[in-house]
């Protein structure tokens, strides 16, 4: 086709106009005003009751986990968070005026949590899960603000983020928010108990469970339609919190409450990988709120489509026959049903979601990384990365799957183990 010069010129003008308008609209969307600095609130004027309330809410939100570097001062940031888009470093949320949020007003704090905008008007990366925090009430945000302002100010600036080229341009986040940030409060269900509603409010908002337990799309936003269908966090699968969870029919309010509060529950495996620090944090949460969360999750985990695979522990009756293979020497000391762990009520392999899941990822990670007690850094389960080869780990997992579950076997795992091992090394 042949276009006349005039047509091309007109086309160019229209395109130019569209781009300018587009930028303008975009700029209008992306622009957020700076909120004035305030002097840091006087510590002594903050009511202790508000601090206590805020501390509990901050515990639900688990601010301290992301906003504290390994061996770093609490809440002073600089923790690296690896995402598919690169590495982000968390901000300092102590009340230091220069490097923290000491100059932030309560309004600024609320805006950050609900809209993902910093005091100076810049957009925050959704590593801060503001699409969840947007549901938190203003009163609760004020309590968290009070708690944070009562912490010790620490001078600590985060290193610059290391993102894929182009993603460092913060106004792009406005676009992301357009797509994924829905300003809505959690709605109470009148037919449900107040405990259930409290649980939903916490889960949807501060606890941001969906942040790990809901799958994400390519832009990194949660797929709301598939809420709680399962996700990935730091190389581990965050199991579904809907009925597709293989252990769904064996979870109830009591076991969920025990699991959240202590990291262990009869008949289920210990909180592992990134869930360890979550339960360590929740160990400080009052029982009523832990139970509320458990009540709500108990509903979600029993709702939805029929489960794809359920855990049916095979009966282990009488004396097990003697087995001569790797399992006895490497695993049996803890994982034989007669082992002290089993006799003392710790989970049998047959009862774990990991061994029963379709995806062997978590089982592989447990063997490669071990499972740590987050409060003491001592191992619940040691890592086998250095004493067992990929092939041996694959064989052991296949053995465990066949001996302890009634699930169909996993595909050969040697390559999977090798790949995950490489992934962990990065």
């Amino acid at each position, binding site marked *: 086709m042949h276009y006349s010069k005039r047509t091309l010129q007109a086309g160019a003008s229209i395109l130019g106009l569209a781009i300018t308008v587009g930028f303008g609209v975009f700029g209008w969307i992306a622009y957020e005003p700076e909120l004035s600095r305030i002097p840091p609130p006087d510590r002594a004027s903050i009511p202790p009751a508000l601090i206590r309330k805020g501390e509990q809410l901050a515990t639900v939100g688990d601010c*301290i986990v992301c906003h504290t570097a390994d061996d770093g001062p609490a809440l002073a940031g600089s923790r690296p968070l690896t995402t598919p888009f690169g590495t982000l470093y968390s901000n300092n949320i102590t009340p230091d005026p220069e490097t923290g949020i000491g100059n932030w007003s309560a309004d600024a704090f609320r805006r950050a949590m609900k809209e993902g905008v910093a005091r100076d008007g810049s957009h925050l990366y959704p590593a801060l899960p503001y699409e969840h925090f947007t549901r938190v009430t203003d009163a609760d945000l004020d309590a968290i603000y009070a708690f944070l302002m009562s912490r010790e100010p620490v001078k600590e600036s985060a290193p610059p983020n290391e993102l894929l080229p182009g993603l460092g341009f913060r106004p792009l986040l406005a676009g992301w928010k357009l797509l994924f940030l829905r300003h809505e409060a959690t709605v109470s269900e009148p037919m449900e108990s107040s405990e259930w509603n409290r649980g939903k409010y916490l889960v949807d908002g501060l606890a941001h469970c969906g942040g790990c337990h809901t799958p994400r799309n390519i832009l990194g936003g949660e797929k709301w339609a598939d809420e709680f269908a399962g996700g990935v966090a730091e190389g581990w699968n965050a199991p579904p919190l809907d009925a597709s969870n293989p252990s769904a029919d064996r979870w109830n309010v009591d076991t969920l409450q025990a699991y959240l509060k202590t990291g262990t529950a009869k008949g289920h495996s210990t909180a592992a990988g990134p869930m360890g620090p979550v339960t360590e944090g929740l160990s400080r949460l009052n029982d009523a709120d832990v139970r509320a969360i458990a009540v709500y999750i108990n509903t979600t985990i029993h709702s939805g489509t029929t489960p794809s695979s359920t855990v049916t522990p095979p009966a282990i009756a009488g004396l097990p026959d003697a087995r001569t293979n790797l399992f006895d020497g490497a695993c*049996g000391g803890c994982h034989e049903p*007669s082992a002290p762990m089993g006799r003392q009520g710790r989970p049998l392999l047959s009862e774990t979601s990991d061994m029963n899941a379709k995806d062997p990822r978590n089982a592989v990670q447990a063997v490669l990384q071990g499972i740590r007690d987050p409060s003491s850094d001592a191992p619940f389960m040691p890592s086998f990365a250095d004493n067992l080869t990929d092939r041996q780990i694959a064989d052991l997992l296949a053995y465990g799957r066949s001996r302890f579950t009634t699930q169909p076997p996993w595909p050969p795992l040697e390559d999977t183990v090798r790949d995950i091992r490489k992934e962990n090394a990065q």
Partner: protein
Amino acid sequence: MSAITRRSFLAASGIAVAFALARPARAQLAGGGEGGAGPAIVNADLPGSLKSWPYLDAWIQLDQNGKATVFTGKAELGQGIRTALTQVAAEELDLPPSKVTLVTVDTLRTPDEGLTAGSHSMQDSGTAIRNAAANVRMLLLAKAAATLGVAEADVATKGNGTIVAADGRSLGYGEIAAAVSLHVEALPNAPLRQKGQFRTMGFNLPRLDIPAKTTGGEAFIQDMRLPGMLHARVIRGPSIGTRLKLPPDSEIEAMDGVVKFVRNGDFAAVVSRREWDAVKLMRRLQALPYTAANEPLPSGGVAETLKALPARDIVILDTSTPTADPKHSVSQSFTRNWISHGSIGPSCALAWLQDDQLTIWTHSQGTFDVRRVAAELLNRPIETIRAIHVEGAGCYGQNGADDVAAEAALIAASMPGKPIRLQWMREQEFGWEPLGPGMVTEVDAAIDAGDRIVKWNYDVWSNPHNNRPVGAGGVLVGNEVAQSFPIPEGKPIPMPEGDGSRNSNPLYDLPNTHVIYHFIKDMPIRVSALRSLGAHLNVFSIESMFDELALKAGVDPLDMRLAHMADDRARSVMLTASEAFGWKTRKKTSPLQGFGMAFARYKNLGAYCAVFMEITVERDTGRLTVRRVQADVDCGEVVSPDGVHNQVEGAIIQSLSWCTREASGNDGTLRTAFDWSTYPILRFRDVPEKIAVTVQQQPGKPFLGVAECGQGPASAALANALADATGVRFTHMPITAEKVRAAIVTL
């Protein structure tokens, strides 16, 4: 010569006992009063264990090459006693340590000095060996002088195994020893070598056991290998008192790898040729159902549990003096939970019945009692049993060692000619060993307008700590066999040593003191001695109270203590440590930083120890960092300065672990601590950043054992530093990070 002499010697001492003068026993008991009655006193004028074994050749023998073999009734537990006693002997014999071989407790070869416990080894054995060696040196000098035809003043030992006369002629110890009989009683005042002459004592002799331990040498009972040795595992339920429902013997005997299945009543053990086979068999059998223990485990807290039990009140102190009126009062209750010994190496024993002689190798602190227990359990004449101590992992009191020794003996007795090695598993150690008793104290004190303490009411509740087996009823297998032996009733250790009452009598000068020990004989949880016994909680309580009273008075904690302490040695350790620490100029430079101190004289008879500590607290986690610890110790004459440092550093770290982490829980039927994940102890990240220990020079003063002097002061200093840092007084151990965090949220 030795075997026959030893037996006749033992028989002879038996006769001597029958004619022993009815003199009152010295106030201090051998082994600190733990275990049984201890060896009888034959000659009360002699120092240390010489009073029970006055003959020199019971302690020292010299061979023709001038080499000395020294016998002690004490055991090396990792506290360095083997090296320290070698130093003592070498010093007084004036021999180089390389020419001295120390034989530790062996019922066939060494004196019975009761238990190695109560920090008594230096007092009992060190003193005996020192004086025996001095006697021997005296005899050698006299003989040398006579042989050379010179006056005794003209001969001297040279430190290399020779005696030289003024005119230069010399004789080796070997030559002289041949002509001297050491089968003579010690004289009480043989001249001792003095500090200025010391060649070995007071110096840091490298520990004799460390080279093997750092290079894979044979160093522990677990390393012993006997020819044709078989491996045994005891088969028990997961927690004390549980009973497995085992199939008939024939079914078990048919399993792969079983050489023998030993069953007697509720006791069961498998014996295999290979150790791993025994472990696998044990696992298979432990998969079977079990019945719960007869008595449920207590479900309440320490205070609730103990105070609900009947108690016998024992008055420890009751003094009254008219004083001014009280102005400020402080009332507090303190508790410590049941805690595990937590030995890194689970208990182990070997036993071998050869031609009617049963030999037991054990790491029990009461090796002579192991023999008595086996004799009663197996109904064998005691002369047919020999028990030999071989070092195990640190035990810190009565762990599973005595149980395992008795079990190995029983298994060996059923398999004549076969050496048996029995090893407890980690979970068996946690599930069945006796725990350190939980205790509670209540203190009610007051100061007058002049900041003097005028009221001191102190109550302590505790089970007996001394349940060390002296007969078959004291070990698990004794309660399990078909013809079982009843668990003996626990008795308190009388003061001045005390058990639950240990250190409940403050060393401070207090005009009105009323201290009652509520002795509780019913033991809902199996308990026995754990390092420092009641001193841990009693010192914790007393020293916490002193700080609280100082706070009320507005007085510095150190000044408060000094104002009430006349004992010069006590004052000296407190002042020395405080100066090295910089107590007077201490200044807080960051929030949640605290300084604390504590002092105690172990049992008011033993070593003096003052501990000063600086800590910081992480507000949002409650995690403590101990920045530095400064301790000073007075242990009388110092044998090995580095040995003292090592013991006290270790005591401080262990005490911090007890204080901040440890409690053995239960769920009503089972002990819930079965491995290190359910019973976490201090790891490297939480160890103090700096620990410094200084030792007072006290030449000529009696030896005082240091093994347990740090437990009480370290925990107390921590609690005091925490109170200083946070303004919160923590009184219930363990003081976990979560407890601290929850208490300081709004600070």
